[in-house]
């Protein structure tokens, strides 16, 4: 971190003009990337899905997945070109990789000892590194198979594996995906500590700006296969030069609730259909003609003709006071089981009409089960679900069409919740057909436009839509049934930040304009502030804290809520933008 600027030539990682192309299309998935990472430095490689960040990460180890190949450029580590026969010798020794999902990257058939032992180093070294990553170094542990470890342990094993050979470069590909915030915090700390201990150059691939802000020294922002902006983390986050970076930052939810979030309209192009000029041009608010024809070069860390024109604008968030209203939906003493395992215990919850209650919990807390029980999808529950004063049967099949109509459910993953064999029209019509009996004219167009979708999409199939569009279709489908209560189950967790922001805006707008009552299930405490008026925090199947959002987040009382607040990485704009 204190390395003088002038020594950059020989030490660390030097990437020049690296291009990885798809086979057989030849389309560059990674296009002319230049990067430098110094020893001991952590570079945050930020990008949304499909931006080519994983492909780039693997290319840094001279590894190309089937269907991709090196099309140009070079990677050098401490002056040694990573090419040809040198690669295998250097892998695991000079360069190492920490995969996104250790559950699938650890060989299920081999013991931990075997897999660690392969990475060089004797038994003592293996135990040493295990201790460094805060894992037990016992024989019992070493004899285990990957499936006998928790997700956090698996990820630590992967980290240990990477550091065993004391590498010069380590590539971490979203290593905390799927971990809860507390575990994530520990893993991030471990990563930081290990990188410092070994003074190795690290490339940390992620889509999470908050993590980048907390962890990294420098940032490279990728968009559609190209690095569009790079520079010291502070600088880039404080004053982004590229319009995409700026808009991306504006889309990140603010845990402290001082800032509104704004999505970016449209979606990123795939490498095959990348426009001729700047790839961001179709979505860029500052676009000029030149942007459409010519690819800007990376100059002074920015790849933009209009660098610096755009700014990171903070839209101050105005806290709206919560007014009291009668409960549209009430849950009384609800308990639920999976087989003999109880997942929810005595839950009581009230959702005021026209307001949004956020149900906050980490994976396994039972939040989705609760949402499904309310929607009638989890009939194995006791207690009561009351809708507008009317107690509902536990099973959706026993509810009347009217009851079913009044509560609509939007699923987490729009890639899963839309039948890929049906057109958007059929999808939107399906619940209305069953629930409304007679389908009013223009229902589909109406629902689509409410979800901010063009009616032209009606004839498309889900596969022809982007993730954001799909989730909008799912929302349109729910709206078509003309519900009173909308249950949103982690509706943005499968989406990119920029799209998430747009969906959150849409949902908030629906509540305001149509007076919809919302139950918003999420694991992201930062989103709660933006979306909801009330929050209920769920831990191990119990509600541990509840109340108006502003109060709960400002002064959490339960230790669990406090831990959540403390462990969630902050994208604290005030740190940069003063």
């Amino acid at each position, binding site marked *: 971190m204190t390395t003088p600027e002038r020594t950059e030539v020989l030490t660390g990682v030097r990437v020049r003009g690296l291009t990885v192309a798809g086979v057989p299309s030849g389309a560059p998935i990674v296009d002319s990337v230049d990067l430098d990472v110094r020893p001991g430095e952590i570079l945050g490689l930020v990008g949304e899905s499909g931006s080519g960040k994983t492909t780039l990460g693997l290319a840094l180890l001279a*590894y190309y997945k089937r269907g991709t190949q090196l099309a140009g450029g070079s990677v050098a580590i401490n002056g040694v070109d990573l090419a040809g026969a040198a690669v295998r010798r250097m*892998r695991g020794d000079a360069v190492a990789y920490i995969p996104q999902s250790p559950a699938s*990257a650890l060989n*299920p058939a081999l013991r931990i000892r075997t897999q660690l032992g*392969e*990475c060089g180093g004797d038994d003592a070294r293996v135990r040493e590194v295990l201790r460094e990553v805060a894992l037990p170094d016992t024989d019992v542990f070493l004899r285990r198979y990957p*499936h006998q470890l928790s997700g956090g342990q698996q990820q630590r094993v992967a980290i240990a*594996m990477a550091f065993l050979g004391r590498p010069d470069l380590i590539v971490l590909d979203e290593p905390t995906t799927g971990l809860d915030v507390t575990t994530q915090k520990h893993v991030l700390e471990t990563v930081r500590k290990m990188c410092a201990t070994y003074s190795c150059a690290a490339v940390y691939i992620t889509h999470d700006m908050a993590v980048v802000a907390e962890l990294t020294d420098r940032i490279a922002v990728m968009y559609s296969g190209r690095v569009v902006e790079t520079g010291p983390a502070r600088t880039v986050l404080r004053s982004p030069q590229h319009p995409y970076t700026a808009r991306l930052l504006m889309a990140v939810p603010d845990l402290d609730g001082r800032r509104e979030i704004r999505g970016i309209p449209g979606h990123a192009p795939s490498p095959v259909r990348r426009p001729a000029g700047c790839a961001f041009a179709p979505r860029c608010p500052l676009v000029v003609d030149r942007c459409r024809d010519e690819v800007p070069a990376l100059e002074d860390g920015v790849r933009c003709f209009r660098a610096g024109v755009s700014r990171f604008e903070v839209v101050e968030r105005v806290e709206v006071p919560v007014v009291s209203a009668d409960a549209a939906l009430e849950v009384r003493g609800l308990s639920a089981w999976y087989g003999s395992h109880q997942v929810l215990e005595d839950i009581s919850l009230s959702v005021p009409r026209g307001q949004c209650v956020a149900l906050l919990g980490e994976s396994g807390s039972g939040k989705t089960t609760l949402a499904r029980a309310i929607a009638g999808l989890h009939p194995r529950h006791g207690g009561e679900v009351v809708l507008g004063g009317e107690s509902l049967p536990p099973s959706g099949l026993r509810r009347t069409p009217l009851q079913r109509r009044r509560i609509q459910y939007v699923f987490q993953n729009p890639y899963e919740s839309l039948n890929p064999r049906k057109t958007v029209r059929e999808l939107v019509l399906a619940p209305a057909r069953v629930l409304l009996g007679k389908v009013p004219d223009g229902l589909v167009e109406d629902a689509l436009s409410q979800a901010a979708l063009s009616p032209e999409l009606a004839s498309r199939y889900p596969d022809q839509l982007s993730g954001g569009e799909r989730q909008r279709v799912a929302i349109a489908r729910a709206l078509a049934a003309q519900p009173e209560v909308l249950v949103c189950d982690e509706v943005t967790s499968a989406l990119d930040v920029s799209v998430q922001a747009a969906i959150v805006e849409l949902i908030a707008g629906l509540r305001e304009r149509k007076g919809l009552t919302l139950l918003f299930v999420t694991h992201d405490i930062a989103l709660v502030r933006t979306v909801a008026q009330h929050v209920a925090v769920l831990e191990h199947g119990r509600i541990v804290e509840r109340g108006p959002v502003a109060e709960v987040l400002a002064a959490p009382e339960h230790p669990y809520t406090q831990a959540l607040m403390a462990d969630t990485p902050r994208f604290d704009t005030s740190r940069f933008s003063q």
Partner: protein
Amino acid sequence: MVRLAVKRLVFGALILWAVSVVVFLATAALPGDTAQAILGREATPERLAALRLELHLDDPLVSQYFSWLGGLLTFDPGRSLVNGLPVAEFVGPRIVNSLVLMLTAAVVSTPLAMFLGTWSAVRRDRAADHVTAVVTLVLAALPEFVVGITLVIVFATGPLRLLPAVYVGTGQVTFVDLVLPALTLVLAVGPYIVRMMRATMIEVLESEYVQQARLKGLPERTVLLRHAVPNAVGPVAQVVALQLAWLAGGVVVVEFLFRYPGIGYALVDAVNNRDLPVVQALALLIAALYIVVNLLADLVSLVANPRVRTAIR
């Protein structure tokens, strides 16, 4: 684990019982009875009546079934209706012969096919892969008897008289008797295993843990043998099991062609003779074989892939 094994065994026993009922009803429904089948052309009413009496064929079906089932539970599958020998004594050596044949075929074909499949997967889309693909496709498409007859012409009745064309003897098989029938079965069973192994290996080779192993800088040999193959063994074991179970049926044609004294040969004979106890014993045996082979395959999967242990309920 133990509970699982017990549960599977109980299910296996239930399946066997259902099979016994099906077989019993099916054999009872066969046109013609044992007496008619034995006498054939000579089946005059007087001789039929006398033989039926001798064979207790006039007992009601249900009592025949239960006396047989009762015997089976006391490990006595009764006597052959046709030659009066105890079924166990009559069928026993044939079971051994068939098992020897099937095991030989399995022991030869499985590693060979797995090797070829792996090789093919590693050389994916190269010449070796294409050649293997074509050869296995053609072999898989040829009926066993064509393969068998061809082998006989090449090795036994043609100019090269290296091996016996058919089995001649009293039930004791020797190595040379085994070669051609086993080879025929190997060529019949192998191609499927090759193809399955190839497909599975390709999937495994694309997995993240293989990617990770490569990224660790392990030599390709180690990646293949330590990381890829063990994970392919599990799924392929299921296919091998299916193929072995198929052998139980496929062995019929081959045993006939080579006059090999095994259960396939005995089964066809017993069906022709309407020899109920023998048909049932053999059918049950084949079913039991299927169940055992499948259990074994599960076991192999278990050993090969510790994750399955937790995956099985």
